[in-house]
């Protein structure tokens, strides 16, 4: 669905309910207004006053925020109505859509496969044609990875573009509010609605807002397009390889200059460990407020200490608890130098190398994921493997705060897969321009599964 599509409200609400029964993407329904300009799904880690917010975790059972996140006010200012909170992996820590504190989210293209995560619910709703826009968050790839698996456009803007006020944190130095749409034009417009300096968020950027939609220019002549060879060399799937090669030949034919980009594997191999160390430490710190005393799950035991222990033991899944342990461990005084501080230093180096490559380019291209969405039955649930660069390259944009999107490139076995287009900080216009050109080539504007 696109912004410009006309809405039959009855038809739409019916579609929402049947879609949810099919893919289980809705965490809770909101009070929507009937005559709104458009309807938006919002990931369940973003506060909507009065509506239940669980963020996929039992520890927030029954919690209703008393205030709206800044992005919600901005959406409403432009005539939007939030119709539901979408399901997500617990507290933003997960990339499958399975650890939601309830039923798993199913991929609309193939119900035996995952959507990816942690913004799986938002991705699935847009893929299923339920709304033209769904809001998500991306800390490690949580928008772009599910976008690739669900054939949608998933945008993670520059860190600080969109206010984080009201967004349940995961790793504050990397959390970025982003969104899903089905076409680039809508994506460009969505960023205009959502971005802006927020005095309530000291990390929000004071950069002047852009006019991305009206400035969209898909002319490829003379554009410097980087091909991320370090990543593409790890892609073995022939369908994927062919799709990518066909694309870059097309780009060249249209006048773009292709530049091969290699980053030292010394740095690339460290992306995932550095990300995990920093993210787990920040997450463990951020979720120290979930102690079962003031909201959410509030068990009453004999002492305060017992209540806190009970809440946190039963309220968090073991996946999340594991992350907290790693995080706390890296922050112990005797470990900080070798773990947390070291990861920060390496992060700075990685970002320097990465941005040096981006500086000379308009965009850098690579496949978002090395394969289509895995089958649910085959998933390794432990979530603690170190990922190869074919997956972890998406995290470069979280470490560096650079803007990055995924848009559908092709299909394999009836399931979509995406292409990652990224630029240097605050260069979203370049990113949207090239993505528009690619969308014109694929013809996938407005792509979604037709609802049952």
């Amino acid at each position: 669905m696109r912004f410009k599509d006309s809405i039959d409200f009855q038809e739409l609400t019916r579609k929402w309910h049947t879609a949810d029964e099919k893919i289980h993407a809705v965490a809770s329904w909101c009070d929507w207004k009937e005559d709104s300009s458009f309807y938006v799904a919002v990931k369940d880690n973003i506060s909507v006053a009065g509506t239940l917010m669980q963020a996929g975790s039992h520890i927030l059972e029954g919690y209703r925020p008393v205030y709206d996140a800044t992005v919600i006010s901005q959406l409403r200012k432009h005539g939007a109505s939030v119709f539901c909170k979408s399901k997500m992996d617990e507290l933003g820590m997960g990339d499958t859509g399975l650890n939601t504190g309830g039923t798993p989210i199913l991929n609309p293209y193939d119900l035996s496969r995952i959507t990816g995560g942690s913004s799986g619910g938002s991705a699935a709703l847009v893929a299923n044609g339920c709304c033209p826009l769904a809001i998500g968050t991306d800390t490690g790839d949580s928008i772009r990875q599910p976008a690739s698996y669900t054939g949608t456009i998933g945008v993670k803007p520059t860190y600080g573009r969109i206010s984080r006020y009201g967004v349940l944190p995961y790793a504050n130095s990397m959390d970025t509010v982003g969104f899903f749409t089905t076409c680039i034009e809508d994506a460009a417009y969505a960023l205009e609605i959502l971005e802006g300096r927020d005095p309530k968020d000291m990390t929000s950027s004071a950069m002047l807002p852009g006019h991305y939609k009206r400035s969209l220019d898909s002319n490829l002549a003379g554009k410097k397009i980087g091909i991320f060879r370090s990543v593409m060399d790890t892609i073995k799937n022939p369908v994927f390889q062919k799709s990518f090669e066909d694309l870059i030949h097309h780009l060249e034919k249209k006048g773009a200059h292709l530049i091969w980009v290699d980053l030292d594997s010394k740095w690339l191999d460290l992306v995932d460990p550095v990300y995990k160390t920093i993210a787990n430490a920040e997450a463990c710190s951020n979720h120290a407020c979930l102690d079962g005393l003031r909201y959410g799950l509030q068990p009453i035991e004999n002492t305060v200490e017992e209540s806190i222990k009970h809440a946190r033991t039963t309220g968090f899944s073991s996946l999340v608890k594991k992350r907290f342990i790693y995080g706390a461990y890296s922050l112990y005084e005797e470990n900080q130098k070798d773990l947390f501080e070291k990861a920060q230093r390496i992060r700075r180096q990685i970002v320097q190398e990465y941005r040096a490559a981006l500086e000379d380019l308009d965009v850098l291209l690579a496949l978002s994921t090395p394969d289509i969405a895995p089958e649910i039955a085959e998933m390794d649930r432990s979530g603690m493997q170190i990922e190869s660069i074919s997956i972890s390259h998406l995290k470069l944009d979280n470490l560096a705060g650079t803007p990055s999107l995924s848009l559908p490139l092709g299909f394999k076995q009836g399931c979509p897969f995406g292409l990652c287009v990224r630029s240097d900080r605050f260069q979203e216009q370049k990113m949207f321009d090239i993505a528009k050109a690619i969308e014109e080539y694929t013809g996938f504007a407005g792509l979604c599964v037709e609802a049952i």
Partner: protein
Amino acid sequence: MDLYLHIGLEIHCELKTNTKMFSSSPIDYQASPNTLVQPFDVAFPGTLPTINQRAVELALRACDVLNCTIDSNLRFDRKHYFYPDLPKGYQITQAFHPLGKDGFLTINSQKILIERVHLEEDTAKLVHRDGYTSIDFNRCGIPLIEIVTRPVITSVEDACAFMAEILRLVTYLEISEGKMEKGQVRCDVNLSLSENPSDLGTKVEIKNLNSISHMRAALCYEVDRQKERIAHQHSIESQTRRYDEKEKKTVFLRAKNRKVDYRYMPDPNLPCVRLSREWIQEVLSKRPRTYQERFQQLTDKHRLSNRLAYDLLKQKEINDLYFEIVKYTRHFSVAANLLCADIRTWLKNHSGPILVKPEDIAFLINEIDLTIPYAKARGILKAGLEGKSIQKEWKAYQNLQLSSQDMDRLIQQTLAQNPKSVHDYLQGKDRALAYLVGQCMRLSKGNVDPQRAKDLLRRGIRNLERSTMDEEE
């Protein structure tokens, strides 16, 4: 056996800002519990801190006066532990980069070294009742500065003097009301004894002392308690104790057997704020002057005697007014004397603020010996304190001044009534003139400017002398 005493102080002082350190909640100590609470103060998920600029300004004043090196990069860290009065599960503080460090304060000619002065947020208030505890989040998030000395204080009296000076400093700097009893300034003391002066010994922490007299009693008790144990060859265990005011002794609270790891981490929600040298200078140039600085100014610049300066500095309200008044007049000692005598007396017998404007008091002072006598000025001032307009009173007095005709008549009358004095003056007894002035004042019921009367009397006597001489001729 000689034992050496080592004391270090950790002082927390609530800053006098309108709103909290990281949220826009107002601060009001009289408010009902849990009525001044924003979502951030109870750590609802998704809330974010924003820095209170005024708190930084007030903290800078303290850093300056305690001679600290100021860090121009403002950075905050998280200190993690679980407790019901700490809703976020961490306190935002400045662990790695305090605003001020390596300062000192001189007490009894000794430089007490100050390790750090940093900003942080206060926790909620736990109120222990019979069988349960309630939490008031009004206090949660109020800005605090923490002042930490090195363990270089060597006597209980010095520790108490240091605390008294800190209370006075924060009051004069106007960063706090400085009331220990109200919990606005709290002090924890670390105390140890050792046989070797370069050794520190085992530290015992004494918490929550809410007055200097309690501090003195608690420390004296603790020193004796430890000396007793050492004398009997018992070891001192590292522990936290509190002072029991009823029993007048320190009481064991908890053991300090292992060091707590707070997993300090820089707060990613608060980017490093660069404070420019110009801004810091501007903030410091506008800060109120301390007691010592005021004393210097009164004695050096205004040339008041030490005695008068001390007198003036006895009450802050009095010397605050003094500094306002001397913006409009240069008669420093007159101003000081009026304040120490008349105004102070009035304040002692009346409650409520002084309603007279400093400009008006200064005006009055400037008119002394020009259009009004000193005594009259005091009278007008008293009227002003009681609510009358000083300008109107002064005007009224001017109008009462006798016309030159009336004046002449008065002079003649005085001279006629006191021929002996006239004769004495002519014989060279100057004191006789003063007597005549007094008589003149009496006759006029005080409505005459004595200087004017003196001049006219002198002239009058000369005229008499001349006319007598003429007669004789």
